[in-house]
């Protein structure tokens, strides 16, 4: 009721008030009222002016820069003080100057009002953002603003949003016809907040429904169904996307392992720590760029690619030369020794970089998102990681299938002694292959640094997952690893939606355990006459 009166008053004010560059001080005084309801009403009145002054005053208010002294309001800007009504500078600081207090309810009204004002911005992006914000927070007080914006708005996308915002605002109108129209309009929405608003209208309050009219209720139910359908589609799409993104992270983590374990048969439990090395390489490069080329910090990540690769590869060579080489053909011992290596690496990272997680910032070109469909927002960093995974994958493929080194590695894999006989330097190939596997893990770690916490323990969480990918895909099969990683990623994300993250993880692990029992050779393993072991 109060809102209704407020909006009527507003309407009157809009017609009467002449267009001049100052606000009626009486209107402003309401902002300093003691009662929150009065304050909110005054905010709506000011907002309805929809001019630069209103924006100035309300922005100041939301930043806690609006002060009151007596019955006059001032805007503080640092040391300077201006009259809120006229915008004229005030020289003398009036006595009893005090910031207006704003509680949460007032603040949300203020935010809506400011969003309403931004609807008249000349920037399309700002208008779009404002319209999106109002989609689920508009109320009747903002109706006049919305109507005016609808009249002037040319952009179709913004108009659609504004219509939904208007419908939201009129959903509680006293007039049944208006509510009916609002419900109809809202069926075009794909906003979960609108859906819950509609659901609230179907609730019973005491004996009566919140929405008294049967016809409107039917319309609302219909609208909810429409929204649900759209939400489900958007949900599935974004799950597939996040699943692919998770899959490409798994793939990046597992690709190196596909070489060291899949091709060379080395169980490297320190693989996760090679990821960590790559991630810390990104952190270190970020530090270097910040210290020396602060203007180019956005490009530290590109510079970190070779650094991460070679740092991890160097650690890998060290591991291979000092420990793993002596354990070829003894997988269980290799497993234990590399676990020991992983502990040493973790502790070394703690000593060098501290036990706490370090902060690795996304470069500017990786932040932000694109909205492909309403509610399907794809963050840039994830898109870039998917692309990066594809890039690394093709690199590995080329390396293994199109280079002499790859040929040697495959030869050593198939028949070590024969390869040695025809002059392949097997020991050097082992080291090189291990270095490449480690380097690729470093690249994986670099990618991880953009979306996950970077800390000494970060690698431990990935080791089981990466092994699962390699094992599931079939040892030594790149294609298998890709299918396994993507399949696991998407399946995990869908299961998460259904059962929650932890249960999803458990289900995936249980699935893999069962799967390995059925097909120990993995998805893509070759059938063959295997030699008796």
């Amino acid at each position, binding site marked *: 009721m109060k809102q209704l009166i407020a909006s009527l008053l507003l309407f009157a004010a809009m017609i009467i008030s002449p267009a001049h560059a100052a606000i009626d001080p009486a209107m402003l005084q309401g902002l300093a009222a003691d009662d929150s309801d009065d304050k909110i009403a005054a905010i709506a009145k000011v907002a309805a002016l929809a001019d630069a002054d209103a924006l100035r005053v309300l922005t100041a208010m939301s930043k806690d820069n609006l002060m009151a002294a007596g019955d006059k309001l001032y805007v503080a800007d640092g040391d300077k003080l201006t009259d809120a009504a006229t915008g004229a500078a005030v020289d003398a600081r009036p006595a009893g100057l005090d910031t207006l207090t704003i509680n949460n309810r007032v603040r949300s009204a203020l935010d809506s009002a400011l969003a309403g004002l931004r609807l008249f911005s000349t920037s399309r992006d700002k208008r779009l953002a404002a319209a999106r914000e109002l989609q689920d927070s508009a109320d009747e007080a903002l109706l006049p603003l919305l109507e005016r914006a609808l009249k002037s708005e040319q952009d179709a996308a913004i108009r659609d949003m504004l219509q939904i915002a208007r419908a939201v605002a009129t959903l509680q109108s006293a007039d049944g016809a208006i509510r009916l129209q609002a419900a109809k309009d809202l069926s075009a929405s794909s906003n979960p907040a609108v859906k819950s608003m509609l659901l609230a209208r179907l609730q019973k309050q005491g004996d009566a429904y919140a929405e008294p009219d049967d016809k409107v209720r039917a319309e609302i139910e219909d609208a909810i169904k429409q929204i649900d359908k759209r939400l489900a589609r958007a949900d599935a799409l974004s799950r597939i996307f996040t699943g692919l993104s998770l899959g490409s992270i798994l793939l990046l983590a597992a690709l190196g392992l596909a070489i060291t374990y899949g091709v060379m048969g080395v169980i490297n439990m320190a693989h996760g720590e090679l990821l960590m090395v790559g991630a810390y390489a990104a952190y270190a490069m970020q530090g270097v760029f910040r210290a020396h080329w602060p203007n180019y910090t956005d490009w530290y990540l590109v510079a970190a690619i070779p650094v991460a690769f070679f740092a991890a590869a160097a650690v890998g060579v060290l591991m291979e030369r000092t420990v793993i080489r002596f354990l070829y053909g003894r997988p269980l011992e290799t497993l234990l020794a590399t676990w020991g290596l992983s502990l040493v690496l973790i502790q070394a990272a703690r000593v060098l970089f501290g036990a706490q997680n370090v902060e690795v910032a996304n470069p500017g070109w990786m932040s932000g998102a694109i909205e492909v469909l309403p509610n399907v927002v794809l963050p840039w960093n994830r898109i870039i990681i998917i692309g990066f995974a594809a890039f690394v994958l093709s690199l590995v493929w080329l390396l293994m299938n199109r280079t002499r080194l790859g040929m040697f590695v495959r030869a050593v894999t198939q028949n070590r002694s024969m390869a040695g006989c025809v002059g392949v330097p097997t020991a050097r190939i082992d080291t090189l292959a291990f270095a490449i596997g480690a380097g690729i893990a470093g690249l994986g770690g670099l990618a991880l640094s953009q979306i996950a916490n970077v800390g000494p323990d970060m690698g431990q969480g990935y080791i089981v997952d990466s092994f699962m990918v390699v094992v599931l895909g079939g040892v030594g099969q790149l294609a298998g690893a890709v299918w396994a990683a993507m399949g696991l990623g998407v399946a995990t994300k869908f299961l998460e939606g259904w059962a929650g993250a932890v249960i999803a993880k458990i289900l995936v692990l249980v699935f893999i355990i069962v799967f390995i029992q059925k097909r120990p050779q993995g998805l893509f393993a*070759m*059938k*063959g*006459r295997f030699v*008796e072991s």
Partner: protein
Amino acid sequence: MKVAAKVTRPADAGERENWDDSGSGGMAHPVTEGELDLSHGVILYLDDITVSFDGFRALNKLTLSIDVGELRCVIGPNGAGKTTMMDVITGKTRPDSGTAFFGQTMDLTKLAEAEIAHAGIGRKFQKPTIFEHHTVFENLELAMKTDKRVRRSLFARLRSEDYDRIAQTLTTIRLEHEADREAGLLSHGQKQWLEIGMLLMQEPRLLLLDEPVAGMTDDETERTAELFVSLAGQHSLMVVEHDMAFVEALGGKVTVLHEGSVLAEGDLASVQADPRVIEVYLGR
């Protein structure tokens, strides 16, 4: 041969149950002689067996049979399917098609390795597989025909006749002075003999021997041939061998395998005279 296989009655469900008591946490019941039906004088039928790996046909409609008490030699160039055939008989590899019967009633393609071993088929691998960390005595003890279920093995004690049997076998394989040595320390030829000894301890009806004299001295080879000839009659033997002198010494019927099926069959002289066999061995 095919006719014989076709009139064979497939193993009925009732008999299968005796073999599959996996629920009881143990091993199949020990075989009593009556369960192996040798009424037609044939101990092993392989009929129309095909095994392929990734499109490669290791066995191609192989049909072969071995009579009770026969000593059969199987020869053939590398990749002819000799080892795969043994894998099929011992249950290690399942054929894509075809049947394998032990006696008249026992369908080998449906039994597990241990069940087949219990039924009375013993196998010697190409590479001697013995328990290198056990003593020679223990190797023979483990091979001895007895109830091999977990529960029995926990409280098993050797009876004096068991000692006698082991001592007898030790003499047969000429390892009586090595009884307490770790088997891994034996010479290659001795290992081969030990594995043959283990096979004998199993008291199998049919022995499959994959290149049993590889790595033996001439003297040892000769003695092995004698042993095998003496075993024929009470046991049936199938010997895969490349050593023609050894095959000749054994003197039994010879089967030539080529590209997964039987190329020729007969005594050694007639097989060696067969132009197709000569072509296969000497190459095209």
